[in-house]
């Protein structure tokens, strides 16, 4: 890899730093040399991956201004050859007929069948080579983002031939981020050579490549450098431990937020109404399927679809909730254990409905661009964005619910009906209406949880089953009828689980948490935050 990089970089140097920039401006004026270009692409269409690698180098060495586009298309698997020998770039490869464009002229050629097209295949080694090639080209790009990505790729890839040109680049670079990265890359090279300057420059760096370079220096021949490297490593390790701690906490909170989302709707129907809704998981499943449905309705706009599925998921689940309340639960007032059985039946029916009505297979829900990837805090710590969004979403839902229960007329009525149904009715509260609305609210929140879960896990008929037991544990652990209890219980169970997992393993961690809950309930039969007063009886 390194040899390839330096080779590629030298090519660029020979051609002049401004090659790519110039080429881009001149592209319109200079007529493309198509015979030579065809020969370059022709060389890619061979079976051996080694020959392909050489063909890629040749493309890079040519001064063809389309080189970067070709390499990118090759990297994306869109560079294909039609049966008549023409090279095309596939614009969209879903379905059986694909729209294509001529690779040489960029002119659209209409649709072609996938039977008539042969992809120029690459493997992971070539993919690495292509990325490096593109990175090298991009190092001279006027585009800042491209330069940054390309500089980050050079860490640990620098060798003796590259040091000089990179040092020169550092001098010319305006962006401080790119400069830092490039200097780090050079320092890693020096540290690996056992030079003191490199070790000093790397002290405090958390990047894994820097750590590898330091540990190599620590095993080097020069005792002074080795000692310095060891000292640097010790401080790095300490720093890493702290970062790892923060990471585990984040994992725990993230898992906790999922538990809270799954359980909070239950806390309302179970805690406030006394209904044990075993179909709660299936209401979540409906929320997730709503997200999928929205994405089907709005193809190409997964982000918008996701945002719209928040109200849609709430509505769908709430309406199904109302249907369940009216058709079944209202007949089982005051018989909580029997609502458990009846709603369990409903959960089976809902699952099977999805299985026969939609498909027993999982559905693909796309994660929008702005929710993928992670937020880089430092070289050793980055936090995944999708989970951060879910964590925030859980807190917002919780705050919203608290607001409804504390500050609205509905909340007041719900609390009144819960505490003393007869008295509330005699005060003119329509208890039946309150029941319907409460159940709809709890179900709707389950729908919201489903929308969030669609971004983390499978959207399939079994989604609900996977969360129902955990949700009950959270509610019971937190104390039935207490929303704060659910929040605290969910987050703390999440953190406990993630702290245990690295040394106990995933299964044992889960078992330990369950046993802990069982024992905790023996100690405090009404959970963390027990309800007080007469409402708690029964």
């Amino acid at each position, binding site marked *: 890899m390194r040899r390839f990089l330096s080779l590629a970089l030298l090519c660029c140097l020979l051609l002049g730093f401004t090659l790519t920039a110039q080429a881009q401006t001149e592209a319109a004026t200079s007529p493309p040399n198509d015979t030579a270009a065809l020969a370059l692409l022709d060389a890619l269409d061979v079976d051996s991956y080694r020959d392909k690698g050489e063909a890629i180098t040749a493309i890079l060495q040519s001064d063809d201004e389309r080189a970067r586009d070709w390499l990118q298309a090759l990297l*994306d*698997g869109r560079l294909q050859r039609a049966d008549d020998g023409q090279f095309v770039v596939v614009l969209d490869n879903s379905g059986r007929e694909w729209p294509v464009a001529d690779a040489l002229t960029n002119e659209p050629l209409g649709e072609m069948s996938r039977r008539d097209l042969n992809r120029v*295949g690459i493997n*992971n080694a070539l993919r690495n080579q292509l990325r490096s090639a593109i990175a090298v080209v991009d190092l001279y790009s006027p585009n800042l983002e491209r330069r940054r990505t390309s500089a980050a790729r050079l860490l640990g890839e620098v060798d003796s031939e590259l040091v000089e040109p990179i040092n020169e680049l550092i001098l010319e670079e305006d962006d401080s981020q790119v400069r830092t990265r490039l200097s780090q890359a050079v320092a890693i090279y020096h540290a690996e050579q056992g030079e003191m300057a490199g070790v000093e420059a790397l002290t405090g760096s958390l990047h894994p*490549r820097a750590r590898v370079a330091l540990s190599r220096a620590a095993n080097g021949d020069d005792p002074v450098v080795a000692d310095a490297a060891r000292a640097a490593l010790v401080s790095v390790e300490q720093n890493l431990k702290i970062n790892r701690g923060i990471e*585990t906490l984040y994992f725990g909170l993230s898992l906790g937020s999922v538990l809270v989302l799954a359980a909070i709707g239950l806390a309302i129907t179970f805690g406030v109404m006394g209904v044990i809704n075993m179909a709660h998981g299936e209401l979540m499943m409906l929320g997730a399927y709503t997200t999928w449905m929205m994405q089907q309705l709005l193809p190409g706009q997964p982000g918008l679809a996701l945002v719209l599925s928040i109200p849609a998921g709430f509505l769908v689940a709430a309406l199904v909730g109302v249907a369940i309340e009216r058709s079944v639960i209202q007949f089982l007032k005051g018989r909580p254990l029997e609502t458990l059985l009846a709603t369990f039946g409903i959960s089976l029916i809902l699952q*099977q409905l999805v299985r026969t009505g939609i498909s027993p297979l*999982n559905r693909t829900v796309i994660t929008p661009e702005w929710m993928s990837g992670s937020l880089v805090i430092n070289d050793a710590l980055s936090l995944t964005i*999708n989970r951060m969004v879910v964590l925030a979403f859980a807190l917002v839902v919780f705050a919203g619910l608290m607001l409804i229960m504390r500050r609205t007329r509905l909340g007041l009525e719900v609390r009144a009906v819960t505490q003393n149904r007869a008295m509330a009715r005699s005060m003119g509260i329509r208890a039946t209406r309150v029941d319907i609305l409460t159940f709809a609210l709890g179900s709707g929140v389950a729908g919201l949880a489903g929308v969030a879960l669609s971004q983390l896990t499978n959207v399939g008929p079994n989604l609900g089953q996977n969360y129902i037991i955990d949700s009950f544990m959270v509610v019971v652990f937190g104390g039935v009828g207490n929303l704060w209890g659910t929040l605290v219980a969910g987050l703390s169970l999440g953190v406990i689980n993630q702290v245990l997992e690295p040394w106990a393993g*995933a299964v044992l961690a889960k078992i330990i948490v369950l046993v802990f809950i069982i024992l905790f309930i023996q100690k405090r039969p009404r959970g963390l935050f027990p309800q007080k007063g007469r409402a708690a009886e029964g």
Partner: protein
Amino acid sequence: MAIQHHHVLSRRFITSVLAAAVMGASAQAIAQSADQSDDPIKVGILHSLSGTMAISETVLKDTVEMLIEQQNDAGGLLGRQLEAVVVDPASNWPLFAERARELLAQEEVDVIFGNWTSVSRKAVLPVVEELNGLLFYPVQYEGEESSGNVFYTGAAPNQQAIPAVEYLINEVGIERFALIGTDYVYPRTTNRILEAFLKDEHGIEQEDIMVNYTPFGHSDWQNIVSEIRRFGEEGKPTAVISTINGDANVPFYTELSNQGIDAADIPVIAFSVGEQELTGIDTGPLVGHLAAWNYFMSVDSDDNYDFIDAWIDYTGDEEAVTNDPMEAHYIGFNMWAEAVRKAGTTDVDSVKDAIIGVTVPNLSGGYAAMMPNHHITKPVLIGEIQDNGQFDIVWQTPSTVAGDAWSDYLPGSRDLIADWRKPMECGNFNVVNGSCGGSTAAEEAEAALAE
């Protein structure tokens, strides 16, 4: 209590308890060979249509039904029509055994195509052996088994796991391996074999092998993925060998891509992720991760394109995908049909004799042969995931590989071989002490016969 009245043609033996098991086979055979008529040939299909496994198994039921339909359109078999007998074991293992008994004793099917999980096969095995049935099992599995009544048309570990690891070492230059799997028998056994293989054949150190097991349907991969990331940051090229099952894959891959682990940095090679599983995943971020199978839908062969077209027509779904276990059923079904033609009867013992050595085309442009150990020959393909949910084949074995029932890398099974041809007829022959299973089973059966 309701009592069912059943008309049953099978045998009745109130003889010695031990003799019953040994004689059962021949008694059944006589009863069946007398049953040659113009009645349709019954093909039992034992795949879960409800419950958690329905997601994988339903398409296999449809595949066999499609193959039966095609066979009937082509004039049936031995001049008789084929008839599918479908039952639903509902992803419930004891129910698998009960349904298998129903198929063999009640419906008297001539052959069964079925099962996905190892546990369901283990549950069915004693029933199929007792009632002398034929079972074609289409899924890649952990090996360590060879039954006279079962034909394993999926891959054994040496037809999937070992070539995949050799590819990683020789072609990609991987030096560090994270073996991540769901905690059940297939990953456990496969990983044991791989560990032994990596250490013995390639001198990989223990510190360069990480093993981790998670429960079924595991959905929170944050910790494990970050551990993998750290494991891969030690300066050596690292790969993940994944035997993660079914539903747990989606959150696993999602977490991988979100934590920024790219196929070019740490490739994941999976043994249980096929086209079917990918239909539930947004494959954009997964491009370049690998899978090892014996068939991919993207295989460029005319037989394959015909099969795909037939499948799309049969399901009426433009987006329908094909996968490896479907090809296994395709091969298994054709092998059975060929053996029936060769034997001129559907009688189980005759078919069992006839099928060894039968060779039929597979879907990747080659041929599959039934070996004496009831496993078949298969090419091994390595594919990279593409953003359209398909695999791009990046490597394949130069020739087909014969399935090995007993792994050479496990201490208990190193000396065992299986050969169901006469006169050996043994599924666990010990080549060291030269006896079947190295146990007293053979003597006991003889003693029972003498009684």
